[in-house]
C-alpha cells in the first residue's frame, strides 16, 4: 500500500512547496505599502512591455523621441502632446514610456549580473576561507571605500558616454555589495547545526553548499536586489543627467537634464514628468524591498 502512495507523494511534494511560496507571498502582501509598490512596478512593467502598442515607435531609433518641430516647448495637453514637448519637440509621454524600457533593461542587467558575480565571488571566499577569503575581501573593501556614484561616474567617464557604458560602470561597482553580503551569510550559516548534521551524514561539500548553505543565505540578497532595482535607476539617471548617455536618448535622467534649462522659463513639464518617473520607480522597489525584508528577515519579525 505504501508503494502505491509513493508516486502520489512525489507529486504532492511540489505542490506543498508551491503552497509554502504562496503563504510567503500572502504574508508579504499583507502590508498595504508593499501592495502599492507592486502595483506601481506592475504599471511600469506593462508600460515597458506594451510600449510599441501605446505609442508608435520612432524610426530609425525608437529610443530617440519623435521630433515635432512645429510644437516645441508646448505645455501638456496642447497640440496632441499629453505631457507636452521639450525644446526639440520631443514628446514627453513618449520619452517616459520608452524610458521605462531603458530603466528595466538597465536595472535587470545590472542587478542580475552583479548578483551572480557577487554570489560566485562571495561563495568562494566564504567556503574556502583562509587567504583566498582575506584577499578577496580586501579587494571588496577597496571597492566599498569609494562611494558608488563617484566610482560609477569615473568608470563611465573613462569608457565614454553611452548607455551601455553606464550599465558596465554600475555593474562594476555594485557587485561587491553582494559578495560581502553572501560571504557574511555563508559564514554565519556554516556554523548552523543543520550544516553539521549534513556533514555527519557524509554529504559532499558541494552538495552541502547547494542544498543547505546557499538556499538559506539568499534571503538578504533577494531583499538587496529588489532595493537595488530602484537604486540602479536612480544612479543611472544621475549619470545620464550629467551627460554620460547619448544625447537625446529617451532616458529619464537625460530628459531631466534636457528639461533643466526650461525650468527657469516656466517650462516645468519635461523635467517634472521624467523626474516623477524616476522617483516612482525607485520608491516602488524600495517599498517592495522593505516589505520583503520585514517578512523574510527573521530578526525584524513580529513584535
Amino acid at each position, binding site marked *: 500500500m*505504501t508503494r502505491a502512495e*509513493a508516486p502520489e507523494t512525489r507529486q504532492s*511534494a511540489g505542490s506543498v512547496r508551491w503552497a*509554502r511560496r504562496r503563504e510567503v507571498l500572502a504574508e508579504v502582501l499583507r502590508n498595504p505599502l508593499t501592495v502599492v509598490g507592486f502595483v506601481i512596478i506592475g504599471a511600469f512593467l506593462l508600460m515597458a512591455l506594451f510600449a510599441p502598442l501605446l505609442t508608435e515607435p520612432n524610426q530609425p531609433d525608437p529610443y530617440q523621441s519623435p521630433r515635432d518641430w512645429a510644437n516645441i516647448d508646448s505645455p501638456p495637453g496642447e497640440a496632441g502632446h499629453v505631457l507636452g514637448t521639450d525644446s526639440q519637440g520631443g514628446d514627453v509621454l513618449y520619452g517616459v514610456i520608452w524610458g521605462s524600457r531603458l530603466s528595466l533593461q538597465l536595472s535587470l542587467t545590472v542587478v542580475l549580473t552583479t548578483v551572480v558575480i557577487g554570489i560566485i565571488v562571495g561563495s568562494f571566499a566564504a567556503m574556502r576561507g583562509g587567504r583566498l577569503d582575506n584577499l578577496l575581501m580586501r579587494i571588496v573593501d577597496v571597492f566599498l571605500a569609494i562611494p558608488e556614484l563617484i566610482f560609477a561616474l569615473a568608470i563611465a567617464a573613462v569608457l565614454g558616454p553611452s548607455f551601455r557604458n553606464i550599465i558596465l560602470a554600475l555593474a562594476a561597482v555594485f557587485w561587491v555589495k553582494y559578495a560581502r553580503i553572501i560571504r557574511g551569510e555563508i559564514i554565519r550559516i556554516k556554523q548552523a*547545526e543543520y550544516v*553539521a*548534521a549534513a556533514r555527519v*551524514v*557524509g554529504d559532499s561539500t558541494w552538495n552541502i553548499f547547494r542544498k543547505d548553505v546557499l538556499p538559506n543565505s539568499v534571503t538578504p540578497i533577494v531583499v538587496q536586489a529588489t532595493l537595488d532595482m530602484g537604486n540602479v535607476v536612480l544612479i543611472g539617471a544621475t549619470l545620464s543627467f550629467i551627460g554620460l548617455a547619448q544625447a537625446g536618448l529617451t532616458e529619464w535622467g537625460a530628459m531631466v537634464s534636457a528639461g533643466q534649462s526650461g525650468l527657469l522659463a516656466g517650462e516645468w513639464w519635461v523635467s517634472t514628468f521624467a523626474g516623477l518617473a524616476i522617483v516612482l520607480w525607485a520608491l516602488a522597489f524600495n517599498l517592495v524591498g522593505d516589505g520583503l525584508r520585514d517578512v523574510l528577515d527573521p530578526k525584524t519579525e513580529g513584535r
Partner: protein
Amino acid sequence: MSPSTPQSATSTVEVDSVVTLNDVSVHYPVKEGLLQRVSGYVRAVDGVDLTIPRGQTLGLVGESGCGKTTLGRVVAGLVPATGGDIWFGLSAQQHAHMNRIRQIEPSERSAEDRALWSELEANHRLGSMSKQRYRDYRRNCQVVFQDSFASLNPRQLVRDIVGRPLRVHGEVSGTDVDQRVIELLERVGLGPQHLLRYPHQFSGGQRQRISIARALALNPEFVILDEPTSALDVSVQAQILNLLVDLQRDLGLTYLFITHDLGVVQHMADQIAVMYLGQIAEHGPTDQVFFDPLHPYSRILRDSNPSLEDEEAVDRWELSGTVPNPINPPRGCRLHPRCPVATEACGWSVTDALDHIESHAPAVFESIDSVARSSDFAATIAMGSDDDAHSFVAQLNAAPFHSAMTAPAITNGKVVSLSFVEVDDAQLLPIRDLRSSACLRTQHEGFLPRQ
C-alpha cells in the same frame, strides 16, 4: 589503610568498544595582533582517555566550558583532534592488541606488531582509515543535536531531511526512499502525514523525533546525543527519553549521551564520565559515581543538584571562585583553586598566588610593579616599596596554600622571590573496580578525601 599505587597494574578490562579515545586533545590557537600571531591555545579538550563499550550508554557530564560538546564533535568527526587517537569498532581482542602495542616505542616493535598496528590503523583509526572504512564509520556514527530547530534545514521538507542519508549513501533510491522514510517516522512516533511538512510546522519535541529518525536512517551502531532534551519541557523530555531507551533496546544501539542535567544522565546512562575544564575528572558506573563519588567535582555536582528526593541535605560541598581561563588552566589538578578539600600537594602555582592576593588584598596587588616568571611554579615579583614587599609576604604566609611554597624571600628590599613545589599535572587513573579518578588525593588515599 594502605594507599593503592597510582600506577595500578590492572588496566580496565578490554571490551568490545564502539569508540576508544587515547589522549585526545583539541587545542584552538588564539591569534592576536595585526599579523595574527598565535599567542596561546584554548585547551578545549586536553588529554582525554575514554572507551565506550558496545550496547551501553555512556553519559558525558559537565558544566559549560568543560569541553563535552567539543569532545562529542570530535567523536562525530566534525572537529579534528589536535592530538591523540580515536579508534572505532575495536573488538575486545583488537582493543587488547592496540593497548599493548601502543605502550611499545615504535622503533622497538616487532615486525609482526608493526603489521598488526598498520592493519588496525587502516581499519579503525580516525585519520588513517581507508576511504571505504571511512564511509562505514560515517554510516555507523550519527548525531542528534540539541537545538532541534537549528539542526533541521528550514527550507527542506521532512521527507528530504530524513531521506538524505539514504540518498547520500546510495542505499536506496527513488520511491523506496519515501517508503523507508515513512518507516523511520513511524518508528519515532510520527506518521506518513508528516512527510511533506516543513520543520517550522512542528513542535520542539516533534522536531527532535525527526532528528532521531534522520540519525537512524542508515542503521547506525552508535549515536551521539548532544543534549537532546535540554531545550524541551519536562513532559516532552520524558517522551523523548522513553523513545531513546526503546530504540536502544530494539536496535542494539550504543549511545554517547552528553548533557549537563544530572537527573537525566543518572536515569539514562550505564557509565558516567564527568568532565571539568577539558579533562575527565572521574569515570565509572553511574550509580557508584553518584552515591560514592571519587572526585570532589563529582561530589559538588551531585550536591548542587536540586532534588525531589526526600533525603535531608547533609554536608553539601560547594565550588568556590569562578571558572579559570582555559588558555592557562591551573597546574596539578585543575580544580584545586576552587576545591573544598585541596591541600598543598594539589598543584599550587604562581598564578594561584597572584589571584589570591588580587581578591583578598587588592591594595597589595595594585602595588605590584612587575612579575618575572621562570616557570609556572617560580617567579620574582617586584613591588612598589619595601613595605609593600613585606605586606605581600605576610599575605602569602597567611594564605591557605602557604605550605606548598618554600618560604618567600625578599631581596633588594622590594623584590620578592617565590617558589612552589612542582607537581605533575593530574592524570585519570584507575582506583578500583571499573572506576577511575583524576583527583590527586583520591589516587593517593583510595577514597574521596573528607572535608
